[in-house]
């Protein structure tokens, strides 16, 4: 059995910004190796782990995708040793000033992302949040050292180390979406002792935060019969509207909306109820904001669903998740996969 909290903490300490997922992929690869029958890496860098089912060939397959890429920053200029940066993925400029960061130059350099004093900024930007283009990374090094060690295009990640908080919760950056990779790993663990007829493709996808490019291309090459995206969703916290958030620690969400095949939703909901796994229903009227949005319209179309793990303070360095929700999401996936039989696709119809 994988030590999930330890694995998750190791993942939170590994770099792996969108488009540059090699370090985090290596870590997941090492953990999944004993849990799957086959591993390969797509041309977009996504990790594909195959667990073969016991049914007769050709077997149907289910793809479960959790993106492993993280948001962050990229160096796009050097002003006298201070680094200018641009964002990778959706960052809120209000949380950036005075964050500890790591600059991945010729070697890893610790630094601080700072907002220059007001008097040094143009008058029109000092009223609101200072835009990212005016923020600078100070590595404490001399301009000469910075020039030697850092070039345009180098990555900058949050340096906040993960830590536990009360109530069996964990804090860290890039829990979006490493929490879901952990849930998928729980699922793989569970399936070691559970027979399943279908093939399972466990996919740690790339570039979700920028283009959904990893899941698009993996779904195209693997052509599963069904696809599940596991991603984080908004947990209740002060200032957030209650009808768009879900309580932390009260189970994963099962998503409903145009991205979701209604019969697949019914199947997941019925199964969760049968196994008394607590869950909430999340409603997405348009775009689910996950890999499922891309996978649903790949090739001839794939029935999709999204399983959500409630997470507080998304896209900040202090994201918070309940470990229980990760375990439950993993168990829900495992129960679902174990229950898939040869006739399951006959139920994926439109009940008009």
């Amino acid at each position: 059995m994988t030590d999930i909290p330890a694995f998750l903490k190791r993942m939170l300490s590994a770099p792996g910004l969108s488009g540059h997922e090699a370090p985090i992929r290596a870590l997941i690869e090492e953990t999944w190796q004993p849990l799957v029958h086959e591993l390969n890496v797509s041309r977009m860098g996504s990790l594909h782990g195959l667990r073969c089912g016991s049914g007769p060939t050709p077997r149907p397959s289910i793809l479960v995708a959790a993106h492993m890429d993280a948001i962050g920053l990229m160096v796009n200029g050097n002003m006298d040793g201070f680094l200018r940066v641009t964002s990778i993925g959706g960052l809120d400029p209000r949380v950036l000033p005075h964050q500890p960061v790591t600059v991945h130059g010729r070697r890893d350099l610790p630094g601080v992302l700072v907002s220059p004093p007001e008097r040094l900024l143009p008058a029109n930007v000092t009223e609101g949040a200072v835009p990212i283009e005016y923020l600078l990374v100070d590595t404490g090094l001399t301009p000469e050292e910075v020039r030697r060690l850092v070039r345009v295009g180098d990555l900058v990640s949050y340096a906040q180390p993960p830590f536990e908080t009360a109530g069996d919760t964990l804090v860290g950056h890039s829990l979006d979406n490493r929490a879901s990779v952990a849930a998928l790993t729980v699922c793989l663990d569970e399936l070691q002792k559970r027979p399943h007829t279908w093939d399972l493709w466990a996919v740690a996808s790339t570039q979700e935060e920028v283009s959904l490019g990893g899941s698009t291309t993996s779904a195209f090459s693997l052509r599963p019969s069904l696809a599940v995206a596991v991603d984080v969703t908004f947990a209740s916290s002060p200032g957030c509207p209650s009808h768009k958030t879900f309580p932390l620690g009260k189970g994963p969400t099962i998503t409903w909306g145009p991205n979701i095949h209604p019969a697949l939703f019914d199947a997941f909901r019925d199964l969760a109820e049968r196994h008394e796994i607590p869950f909430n229903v999340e409603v997405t009227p348009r775009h689910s904001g996950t890999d499922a949005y891309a996978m649903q319209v790949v090739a001839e179309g794939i029935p999709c669903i999204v399983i959500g793990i409630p997470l507080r303070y998304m896209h900040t360095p202090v994201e918070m998740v309940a470990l229980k929700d990760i375990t439950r999401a993993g168990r829900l996936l495992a129960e679902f996969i174990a229950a898939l039989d040869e006739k399951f696709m006959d139920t994926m119809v439109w009940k008009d």
Partner: protein
Amino acid sequence: MKKTNEFSLPRIGATQIKLLEKLSNACAVAGDEGEVRKIVLEQIGPHADEVNVDALGNVLAYHRGTGEKRLRVMVAAHMDEVGFMITADDGDGFYRFDVVGGVDAYKLVGKAVLIGKEHIPGVIGIKPVHLTNAEERKRPVELEALRIDIGPAAGKVKVGDRATFATRFTQLGPSLCGKALDDRLGVATLIELLKNAPPHIDLLAAFTVQEENGLRGARVASFALMPDLAFVLDATPAHDLPTWDGSENARYNSRLGMGPAIYVADTSALHDPRLVRHLMVTADTFGIPYQIRQPGGGGTDAGAIHKQRAGIPSVSISVPTRYLHSPASIARLADWQNDLALVQAALLRLTPDLLKETR
């Protein structure tokens, strides 16, 4: 049947209008097209060689032609409409909702709606004018502040249910009035085309889903069908109203009574010039009136179709319709008739040589 020298073109009669009425009154918000899908399946069953419903809910119907070297011609019309989804139960029969597709909040106030598969009636209200002040009355309506109210009853409404405007279809002299004419006009037209499919082509009819949600159904439908070319039947806004100062209206998009609108360019696609020419020459040959839809914003399923696989030559043709994406839109019967006639004639005149011309 109207006879021409070579071909006979189908006409819109009482039966077709009845069908349009049924389609317009059905509720099928993007992602939940079941009611329209059911009507389509009933209608086309006897007229197609093969019918499939795919993973997104598109209805893909195949009519095999006869003869050699048949073009595979996709004709698409979307089944879905703009509408609402219930997102939270506030208690006492009040529900929060979100909009699916492009509907401006100001169009919602004081309207009746139907919710869910059982068409439970409800309203979208607003504070009485007496209780507002002058400042409030000037402010635009915010979606966040609106609720659907089904009356103070134990609700049969669930979070996740869809809702539409409650408007019932009616005829206004030479005009047709109803909700969701975008794109039930196209759906009704495509059903007629399938019933009169020309024998020299393979007709691949795609009744698509989720057009209003980003052209998603047409994308997978065209990937699966692998056509040689595609026609997209839709409804396009007619802004042919007077300007406030009576000056020339240069931004009408399309005009009622001037015939079907052929697309050249919109946000989603630069329509294939060969197919645009083919439609115009066909219209001139048959004496069918047509107009060029003003190039500009907007999009149709052609936006998704033309980019699939190694490229699919596509064109859109629409019935001009006033007040799209509102509770009641208005179109002209004659434009619909000419739309059907033009597309039917264009299909009859299709030859593989068309695609050998320089684009």
